[in-house]
Protein backbone atom coordinates (compact mmCIF):
# COMPACT_ATOMS: atom_id res chain seq x y z
CA UNK A 1 0.00 0.00 0.00
CA UNK A 2 1.16 3.49 -0.86
CA UNK A 3 0.09 6.79 0.61
CA UNK A 4 -1.06 9.37 -1.89
CA UNK A 5 0.48 12.85 -1.62
CA UNK A 6 -1.83 15.56 -2.97
CA UNK A 7 -0.40 17.79 -5.71
CA UNK A 8 -3.32 20.19 -5.67
CA UNK A 9 -4.97 21.66 -2.60
CA UNK A 10 -8.02 23.89 -2.48
CA UNK A 11 -7.71 27.30 -0.84
CA UNK A 12 -10.77 26.36 1.17
CA UNK A 13 -8.91 23.39 2.71
CA UNK A 14 -5.71 25.39 3.22
CA UNK A 15 -7.58 28.31 4.81
CA UNK A 16 -9.53 25.99 7.10
CA UNK A 17 -6.27 24.31 8.10
CA UNK A 18 -4.74 27.64 9.13
CA UNK A 19 -7.86 28.69 11.03
CA UNK A 20 -8.08 25.40 12.92
CA UNK A 21 -4.32 25.35 13.51
CA UNK A 22 -4.62 28.69 15.29
CA UNK A 23 -7.02 27.15 17.84
CA UNK A 24 -4.64 24.58 19.44
CA UNK A 25 -1.90 27.21 19.26
CA UNK A 26 -4.13 29.50 21.32
CA UNK A 27 -4.43 26.76 23.95
CA UNK A 28 -0.65 26.39 24.03
CA UNK A 29 -0.40 30.00 25.29
CA UNK A 30 -2.19 28.88 28.44
CA UNK A 31 0.08 25.88 28.86
CA UNK A 32 3.28 27.67 27.92
CA UNK A 33 2.62 31.36 28.71
CA UNK A 34 6.32 32.23 28.42
CA UNK A 35 6.32 31.54 24.66
CA UNK A 36 5.11 34.51 22.65
CA UNK A 37 3.23 33.02 19.77
CA UNK A 38 0.27 35.38 19.88
CA UNK A 39 1.37 37.12 16.68
CA UNK A 40 1.73 33.79 14.88
CA UNK A 41 -1.80 32.79 15.92
CA UNK A 42 -3.29 36.09 14.78
CA UNK A 43 -1.43 35.92 11.45
CA UNK A 44 -2.44 32.29 10.85
CA UNK A 45 -6.07 32.97 11.76
CA UNK A 46 -6.42 35.94 9.44
CA UNK A 47 -4.46 34.36 6.57
CA UNK A 48 -6.77 31.36 6.95
CA UNK A 49 -9.90 33.51 6.83
CA UNK A 50 -8.54 35.55 3.93
CA UNK A 51 -7.67 32.65 1.63
CA UNK A 52 -10.69 30.47 2.48
CA UNK A 53 -12.35 30.86 -0.87
CA UNK A 54 -14.09 28.30 -2.94
CA UNK A 55 -13.00 27.46 -6.47
CA UNK A 56 -9.34 28.33 -5.86
CA UNK A 57 -6.57 25.77 -5.77
CA UNK A 58 -2.84 25.67 -5.33
CA UNK A 59 -0.74 23.17 -7.32
CA UNK A 60 2.84 22.17 -6.82
CA UNK A 61 4.02 22.37 -10.40
CA UNK A 62 4.75 25.20 -12.83
CA UNK A 63 2.07 27.25 -14.59
CA UNK A 64 2.99 25.73 -17.97
CA UNK A 65 2.66 22.14 -16.65
CA UNK A 66 -0.60 23.09 -14.91
CA UNK A 67 -2.01 24.54 -18.14
CA UNK A 68 -0.84 21.52 -20.15
CA UNK A 69 -2.56 19.15 -17.68
CA UNK A 70 -5.77 21.18 -17.87
CA UNK A 71 -5.70 21.17 -21.69
CA UNK A 72 -4.98 17.42 -21.81
CA UNK A 73 -7.85 16.72 -19.41
CA UNK A 74 -10.28 18.87 -21.40
CA UNK A 75 -9.14 16.96 -24.50
CA UNK A 76 -9.86 13.67 -22.76
CA UNK A 77 -13.27 15.00 -21.73
CA UNK A 78 -13.85 16.02 -25.38
CA UNK A 79 -14.73 19.54 -24.27
CA UNK A 80 -13.74 22.45 -26.48
CA UNK A 81 -12.09 25.51 -25.00
CA UNK A 82 -10.51 28.79 -26.00
CA UNK A 83 -7.39 30.39 -24.57
CA UNK A 84 -7.16 34.14 -24.60
CA UNK A 85 -5.34 36.67 -22.42
CA UNK A 86 -4.22 33.97 -19.96
CA UNK A 87 -7.81 32.83 -19.47
CA UNK A 88 -8.97 29.40 -20.52
CA UNK A 89 -12.71 29.28 -21.25
CA UNK A 90 -14.66 26.01 -21.51
CA UNK A 91 -17.00 26.66 -24.45
CA UNK A 92 -19.91 24.51 -23.28
CA UNK A 93 -20.34 26.06 -19.83
CA UNK A 94 -18.41 29.36 -20.32
CA UNK A 95 -16.46 28.53 -17.13
CA UNK A 96 -13.28 30.59 -17.00
CA UNK A 97 -10.03 29.17 -15.66
CA UNK A 98 -7.22 31.49 -14.64
CA UNK A 99 -3.74 30.11 -14.05
CA UNK A 100 -1.39 32.27 -11.98
CA UNK A 101 2.21 31.50 -11.13
CA UNK A 102 3.29 32.37 -7.56
CA UNK A 103 6.92 31.41 -7.01
CA UNK A 104 7.19 27.64 -6.80
CA UNK A 105 3.41 27.27 -6.79
CA UNK A 106 0.64 27.82 -9.27
CA UNK A 107 -2.83 29.02 -8.39
CA UNK A 108 -5.86 27.92 -10.40
CA UNK A 109 -8.95 30.11 -10.14
CA UNK A 110 -12.30 28.94 -11.51
CA UNK A 111 -14.81 31.64 -12.36
CA UNK A 112 -18.17 29.90 -12.44
CA UNK A 113 -20.90 31.37 -14.60
CA UNK A 114 -23.79 29.74 -12.73
CA UNK A 115 -24.09 29.35 -8.98
CA UNK A 116 -24.10 25.69 -7.89
CA UNK A 117 -23.96 24.37 -11.45
CA UNK A 118 -23.39 20.60 -11.31
CA UNK A 119 -21.66 20.68 -14.69
CA UNK A 120 -19.23 23.42 -13.75
CA UNK A 121 -18.50 21.75 -10.41
CA UNK A 122 -17.89 18.45 -12.19
CA UNK A 123 -15.48 20.12 -14.65
CA UNK A 124 -13.61 21.82 -11.80
CA UNK A 125 -13.33 18.63 -9.72
CA UNK A 126 -12.12 16.60 -12.71
CA UNK A 127 -9.52 19.17 -13.77
CA UNK A 128 -8.19 19.32 -10.20
CA UNK A 129 -8.17 15.53 -9.92
CA UNK A 130 -6.04 15.28 -13.06
CA UNK A 131 -3.57 17.82 -11.63
CA UNK A 132 -2.65 15.07 -9.18
CA UNK A 133 -1.67 12.64 -11.90
CA UNK A 134 1.94 12.50 -12.94
CA UNK A 135 1.68 9.37 -15.06
CA UNK A 136 1.44 10.04 -18.78
CA UNK A 137 -0.49 6.81 -19.22
CA UNK A 138 -3.57 8.65 -17.95
CA UNK A 139 -3.76 10.72 -21.12
Amino acid at each position, binding site marked *: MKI*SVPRAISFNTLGSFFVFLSLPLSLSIIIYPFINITNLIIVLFFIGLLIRRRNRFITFHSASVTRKLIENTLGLMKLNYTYELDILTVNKTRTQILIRSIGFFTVIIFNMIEKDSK*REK*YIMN*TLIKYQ*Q*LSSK*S*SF
Partner: protein
Amino acid sequence: MQKEKVHFEIDINVPQENVFDFLTDPKNIPLVLPGLVENYNIPELPIKKGSTFNFRYQILGVLLDGKTIIDEIERSSIYNFTTEGEVDSKWLQNMTTKNGGTHFTLDVEYTPPRSWLDKAKLTMIQEINRRDAEKYTKNLKELLEMQS
Protein backbone atom coordinates in the same frame (compact mmCIF):
# COMPACT_ATOMS: atom_id res chain seq x y z
CA MET B 1 -15.85 -12.60 4.32
CA GLN B 2 -18.49 -9.87 4.50
CA LYS B 3 -19.62 -8.48 1.13
CA GLU B 4 -21.07 -5.04 0.57
CA LYS B 5 -23.44 -4.02 -2.22
CA VAL B 6 -24.18 -0.72 -3.94
CA HIS B 7 -26.96 -0.07 -6.47
CA PHE B 8 -27.64 3.04 -8.57
CA GLU B 9 -29.57 3.84 -11.70
CA ILE B 10 -29.88 7.00 -13.77
CA ASP B 11 -31.34 8.26 -17.05
CA ILE B 12 -28.78 9.76 -19.43
CA ASN B 13 -29.98 11.85 -22.36
CA VAL B 14 -27.61 10.38 -24.94
CA PRO B 15 -27.97 7.27 -27.13
CA GLN B 16 -27.18 3.90 -25.59
CA GLU B 17 -24.24 3.38 -27.98
CA ASN B 18 -22.52 6.55 -26.72
CA VAL B 19 -22.75 5.39 -23.10
CA PHE B 20 -21.47 1.93 -24.01
CA ASP B 21 -18.57 3.29 -26.11
CA PHE B 22 -17.54 5.64 -23.33
CA LEU B 23 -17.64 3.00 -20.58
CA THR B 24 -15.78 0.35 -22.56
CA ASP B 25 -12.74 2.59 -23.08
CA PRO B 26 -10.89 2.12 -19.75
CA LYS B 27 -8.97 5.40 -20.06
CA ASN B 28 -12.27 7.31 -19.77
CA ILE B 29 -13.28 5.90 -16.40
CA PRO B 30 -11.09 8.10 -14.12
CA LEU B 31 -13.04 11.03 -15.61
CA VAL B 32 -16.21 9.83 -13.93
CA LEU B 33 -15.18 7.60 -11.01
CA PRO B 34 -13.79 9.91 -8.29
CA GLY B 35 -11.59 7.38 -6.45
CA LEU B 36 -10.06 5.87 -9.58
CA VAL B 37 -6.63 7.39 -10.20
CA GLU B 38 -5.89 5.56 -13.44
CA ASN B 39 -6.36 2.47 -15.57
CA TYR B 40 -3.14 1.28 -17.24
CA ASN B 41 -1.75 -1.59 -19.30
CA ILE B 42 -4.91 -1.21 -21.36
CA PRO B 43 -5.13 -3.75 -24.22
CA GLU B 44 -5.98 -2.82 -27.78
CA LEU B 45 -9.58 -1.62 -28.16
CA PRO B 46 -12.28 -2.80 -28.44
CA ILE B 47 -11.96 -4.75 -25.24
CA LYS B 48 -13.67 -8.13 -25.14
CA LYS B 49 -14.57 -10.87 -22.68
CA GLY B 50 -11.40 -11.97 -20.90
CA SER B 51 -9.52 -8.68 -21.54
CA THR B 52 -7.56 -7.42 -18.56
CA PHE B 53 -5.97 -4.15 -17.47
CA ASN B 54 -4.57 -2.67 -14.26
CA PHE B 55 -6.02 0.05 -12.08
CA ARG B 56 -4.94 2.34 -9.26
CA TYR B 57 -7.64 3.42 -6.81
CA GLN B 58 -7.41 5.89 -3.96
CA ILE B 59 -9.40 5.55 -0.76
CA LEU B 60 -8.75 7.53 2.44
CA GLY B 61 -5.45 8.74 0.93
CA VAL B 62 -4.19 5.19 0.36
CA LEU B 63 -3.39 3.98 -3.16
CA LEU B 64 -4.57 0.48 -4.01
CA ASP B 65 -3.44 -1.40 -7.13
CA GLY B 66 -5.29 -4.21 -8.84
CA LYS B 67 -6.42 -5.89 -12.02
CA THR B 68 -9.71 -5.63 -13.90
CA ILE B 69 -11.02 -8.68 -15.79
CA ILE B 70 -13.89 -8.32 -18.25
CA ASP B 71 -16.52 -11.00 -17.50
CA GLU B 72 -19.26 -10.15 -19.94
CA ILE B 73 -19.59 -7.60 -22.71
CA GLU B 74 -22.48 -7.26 -25.09
CA ARG B 75 -22.48 -4.31 -27.47
CA SER B 76 -24.56 -1.41 -26.18
CA SER B 77 -26.24 -3.23 -23.30
CA ILE B 78 -23.96 -5.15 -20.91
CA TYR B 79 -20.53 -4.43 -19.48
CA ASN B 80 -19.59 -6.55 -16.45
CA PHE B 81 -16.19 -6.98 -14.87
CA THR B 82 -14.45 -8.08 -11.69
CA THR B 83 -11.49 -6.48 -9.98
CA GLU B 84 -8.77 -8.39 -8.15
CA GLY B 85 -5.91 -7.30 -5.93
CA GLU B 86 -6.18 -5.11 -2.88
CA VAL B 87 -9.82 -4.50 -3.80
CA ASP B 88 -12.03 -7.40 -4.87
CA SER B 89 -15.24 -6.27 -6.50
CA LYS B 90 -17.80 -7.20 -9.11
CA TRP B 91 -19.34 -4.53 -11.35
CA LEU B 92 -22.56 -5.17 -13.25
CA GLN B 93 -23.51 -2.39 -15.69
CA ASN B 94 -26.62 -2.49 -17.79
CA MET B 95 -27.82 -0.07 -20.47
CA THR B 96 -31.28 0.05 -22.05
CA THR B 97 -32.90 2.58 -24.36
CA LYS B 98 -35.47 4.85 -22.72
CA ASN B 99 -37.19 7.79 -24.46
CA GLY B 100 -34.35 8.10 -26.96
CA GLY B 101 -31.79 8.20 -24.16
CA THR B 102 -30.25 5.55 -21.94
CA HIS B 103 -31.31 4.01 -18.67
CA PHE B 104 -28.10 3.05 -16.91
CA THR B 105 -28.01 0.58 -14.00
CA LEU B 106 -25.01 -0.04 -11.79
CA ASP B 107 -24.56 -2.81 -9.21
CA VAL B 108 -21.28 -3.12 -7.35
CA GLU B 109 -20.42 -5.89 -4.93
CA TYR B 110 -17.16 -5.54 -3.04
CA THR B 111 -15.20 -7.08 -0.20
CA PRO B 112 -13.43 -4.54 2.02
CA PRO B 113 -9.85 -5.77 2.66
CA ARG B 114 -9.12 -6.81 6.24
CA SER B 115 -6.29 -4.29 6.60
CA TRP B 116 -8.74 -1.43 6.07
CA LEU B 117 -11.07 -2.82 8.65
CA ASP B 118 -8.29 -2.77 11.18
CA LYS B 119 -7.73 0.92 10.60
CA ALA B 120 -11.08 2.40 9.75
CA LYS B 121 -14.68 1.78 10.53
CA LEU B 122 -16.53 -0.30 7.97
CA THR B 123 -19.37 2.24 7.88
CA MET B 124 -16.94 4.94 6.75
CA ILE B 125 -15.73 2.78 3.85
CA GLN B 126 -19.30 1.86 2.97
CA GLU B 127 -20.22 5.54 2.83
CA ILE B 128 -17.20 6.43 0.66
CA ASN B 129 -17.95 3.60 -1.78
CA ARG B 130 -21.64 4.49 -1.89
CA ARG B 131 -20.78 8.13 -2.58
CA ASP B 132 -18.21 7.15 -5.23
CA ALA B 133 -20.73 4.92 -7.01
CA GLU B 134 -23.37 7.66 -6.89
CA LYS B 135 -20.93 10.22 -8.28
CA TYR B 136 -19.86 7.75 -10.95
CA THR B 137 -23.41 7.58 -12.35
CA LYS B 138 -24.01 11.33 -12.00
CA ASN B 139 -20.64 12.29 -13.52
CA LEU B 140 -21.29 9.89 -16.39
CA LYS B 141 -24.55 11.71 -17.08
CA GLU B 142 -23.01 15.20 -16.82
CA LEU B 143 -20.05 14.44 -19.08
CA LEU B 144 -21.89 12.51 -21.79
CA GLU B 145 -24.71 15.06 -21.96
CA MET B 146 -22.14 17.87 -22.22
CA GLN B 147 -20.34 16.03 -25.03
CA SER B 148 -23.52 15.52 -27.04
